[in-house]
């Protein structure tokens, strides 16, 4: 929390956990999205509304292609989370350990403070509302009964007075401060500052064979998202996916790969149905990698004849 508004310093560590590339910091996520057009997919359940999976939150999972692209651009490096945890946590001693525990405690305290503040405000609001309502009712009742009976108005007034007093006393008793922090489960078992400053160049993350197409599309300033939902490799957006519908559903094939004509029909049909162009592309192995872009792409549209 303390570094939440700190500027992002490259290279960014990407923890690799159980074969997935996950990002836990919202600032890193927004930074990558706005600067490098890397969107990823939010996979975390939202604690407030856990019984749905339409809206998801942190962490953000990066496709292997995205991770590799970031590594290639030297924007990020990959941290094997398990290995690093073992290495760091077993050797955590003395002042380091104390510092780590202290940071956990302070986080817990802060969380408690925030939660209490929120709940107090909520209850105050509710009580004030309630009191106002009762008072209004009492006033109405007294106005009605004023001519007929004087005693009842007195009773109503005393009741309203009683009602006003009671919440006030409860509110005063509510803020009982305690020093026990909330238990906090940290997303990483190390603080970011403890990560290696100059990471050793790691082996490239393994990527599917469609990586050249991904890179090609990304280099053309498209936003590329995984396309499993639409039965393709990538959904290609002309701008930020929050603002645009995707224009292409891209599928990558190897240059000499044989595929059935029926797959083309299916892709074209589906793409046309969801108002996208079905795009196929592949890397031409004959073109030298240093002679520009070796990926060629083709769009297939369903022509209603």
């Amino acid at each position, binding site marked *: 929390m303390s570094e939440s508004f700190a500027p992002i310093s490259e290279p960014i560590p990407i923890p690799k956990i159980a074969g997935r590339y996950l990002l836990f910091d919202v600032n890193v996520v927004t930074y990558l999205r706005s600067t490098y057009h890397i969107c990823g997919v939010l996979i975390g359940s939202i604690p407030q509304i856990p019984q749905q999976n*339409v809206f998801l939150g942190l962490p953000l999972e990066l496709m292997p292609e995205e991770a590799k692209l970031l590594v290639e651009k030297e924007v990020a490096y990959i941290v094997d989370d398990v290995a690093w945890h073992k290495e760091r946590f077993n050797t955590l001693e003395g002042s380091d350990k104390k510092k780590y525990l202290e940071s956990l405690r302070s986080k817990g305290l802060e969380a408690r403070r925030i939660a209490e503040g929120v709940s107090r405000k909520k209850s105050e609001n509710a009580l004030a509302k309630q009191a106002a309502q009762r008072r209004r009712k009492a006033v109405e009742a007294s106005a009605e009964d004023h001519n007929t009976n004087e005693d009842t108005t007195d009773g109503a007034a005393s009741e309203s007075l009683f009602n006003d007093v009671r919440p006030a006393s409860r509110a005063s008793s509510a803020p009982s401060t305690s020093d026990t922090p909330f238990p906090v489960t940290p997303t990483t078992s190390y603080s970011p500052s403890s990560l290696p400053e100059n990471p050793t160049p790691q082996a490239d993350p393994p990527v599917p064979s469609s990586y050249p197409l991904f890179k090609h599309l990304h280099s053309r300033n498209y936003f590329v998202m995984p*396309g*499993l*939902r*639409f*039965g*393709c*490799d990538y959904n290609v957006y002309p701008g930020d996916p929050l603002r645009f519908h995707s224009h292409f559903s891209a*599928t990558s094939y190897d240059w000499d790969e044989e595929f059935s*004509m*029926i*797959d083309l*029909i*299916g*892709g074209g*049909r*589906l793409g046309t*149905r969801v108002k996208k162009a079905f795009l196929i592309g592949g890397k031409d192995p004959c073109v030298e990698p240093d002679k520009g872009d070796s990926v060629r792409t083709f769009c297939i549209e369903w022509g209603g004849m």
Partner: protein
Amino acid sequence: MTDVTQKPQSGEDKPRPSEPRLTRSQQLNKLYALPAPLRTFPLPTLVPHNPLSLFHVLYVWLSQTIKPPSSHIEPLYDGHWSPETRSVHITDGRSVRGLWEQGFYGKGSLSRSEPNWMKGQIARANKLRATSEELTRQRREERQQAKWERARKEREAIDQKLLEEAKAVLEETVANDDSTWTEEKPLNESDTISTISEPDRNTWRRSLKFFPSPVGPIELLSLPNSLSDLEHWAYDDEPVSPTPIEEGTRHRSRSMPSPVGPIELLSLPNSSSDLKQWVYDEPSNPNPIKEDMGPRKQQFLPPVGPTELLLLPNSSSDLEHGPYNDVAASPAIHLKETPVSQQCAAPTGPLEILALPNSLEDLSLRGKPLESRDHAEAELDKSTNGYSHIPNGIEPDTAPGAEINDKWTNDSGVNGRTGSETSVNGTTADIRDEASSNSVQSEEIVSNGFASTNGAPETPKIKRQKSVRFSPTVEQNTFIEGEPPNLEGGSSSTAASIELQEKPLVIQDQEHFQLMMEEAFFLSYGLGALKVLDSTNSPISNEDLFYMFRRYSHFTPVSNPILSPDDPFVLNYVVYHHYRSLGWCVRGGAKFSCDFLLYNRGPVFSHAEFAIIIIPSYTDPYWSSDVFMQNYVKGREKKSWSWMHCINRVISQVKKKLVLVYVDVPPPVDTDAERKLGIDGVLGRYKVREFVMRRWLSNRERGSNEEKEKA
């Protein structure tokens, strides 16, 4: 070449039941009663209390045991193997209809269409009725039109909304600026007003006062175009800029009347600069427009009729030009104004609309006295207006048009001709078919008719040109000889059709029918109802057919006689045979990117229910025996999840259920053993497993179930 005109229903073997009138579904049931091209001979029902029925049953049973009837259709249907299209072509009409009506629909991927190309051609040639293709096209066009209309309305709504929003924003900014100005005031030290905040507001109000609410064009033009204008105006010295305009405004608002007529509209200034110029120029250069306004107003009557509309000026320049040249150049217009307006009645029908003049030239010509009419028409011929330049009468339906035009001329009393043209129309009815000769003929006839009445050598041509004026409504009408011409549609197309049937119309039947290899093999091997002929017209045996189809199922046909047990034809045929045996109607599913589509009874009755994807399954231990085999199998079985999702989405979009059919591939055997096994043995080694797959979304499915319960 078939001669179809003799019996228009020749495409069908069975006579359609004519009476009593059957519903469409009953007709279909009757037509497609047989699910397969086989005949069955069930025993008659036994009625216990009727002893005669027992005898009947016994008789039938005996006669069938002594002389068993053939369940095959004699003669067999025949098809020709076409290696180029990898299909079996069925060309003769009997086989096409026979197979189509008995559950074999071939490769055609147009949904639910019949082999009715020939009928469509005949219908098109005869123009008897619209073919189904035409109806479909028309429906599509209408739908397209409706969509455009909807899109336009949506667009308009959006524009309206945007406009409102823009207005709201503008008001808001004006209000905001009012407050911000007071804060910014101290910066403007050069302002002449001594106090800072209060007087400023005053200036602002004053500037607002300059702009009266825009009730007229002048006020609108005098409004500021931007905030900077406003600012400029408000802080500038008062006497410099606002006053002249205001003066001008006052002056002009007197001079310019509210735009109630076209002249006033045209004479309105287009911009503020116009306005200024006008105001300043007024004393030195007396405005011609203004001066001429009076007389011109009298000239241009309010446009209540077409004549007046045509007479109206199109632009300001016209206007200026008009009054000066009025007397000299175009006196005819005004001279003839009254007669023309008498001639052109208010347009209450199509005739009158057509009869209306299209331009002033027409008007002037029409307005000429009767004696100069011939001359005028000769001129008309040369002139380029739409009235006279009508494409020549190529359409066979020119004559009715001529009649109508003539009728009009009769009515208007310009040409004192009698209604003798009815005979002309009667004769045109029988020449509707051949387009080219017909047009010539009709021209001649029409010209004769005119020659007899008019006598002038040039008029016939003109008349013919006139006659094609409108086709859409009149085209339908044909007039019989002796019948008075009737515009209301007392048509008698019978005359035309009777005439037509006398002339043989020969259309070559270009439609044929293609069977998939699996279909053809099932018909030949499974049912014995088809004879497949090769290029030399000799029948191919089932054995040969089996191996030939297997070789051709690869894209470049394999010449190698050793065939793998998982070649596409065998896999497909196993599945095809499986579902056919279970009574499904199976068609190719290329259009939905699957292997087969399963219909309950046939595409005529309902949409397909299931879509089949065939996946070879290598469960036999042979296929995992060595590394080479394992790699081979991996390559064959590899399908990505995105592929699966794609297919599933396509299939569920068209409301079918996806069935994954796994075919267990047996280990290969050598050629001799395969020959020994025969087709039955080879096919018997395959097994089929089926899985129905569907996309299931927890939140959506609940909704749909609730809907089902409600319904």
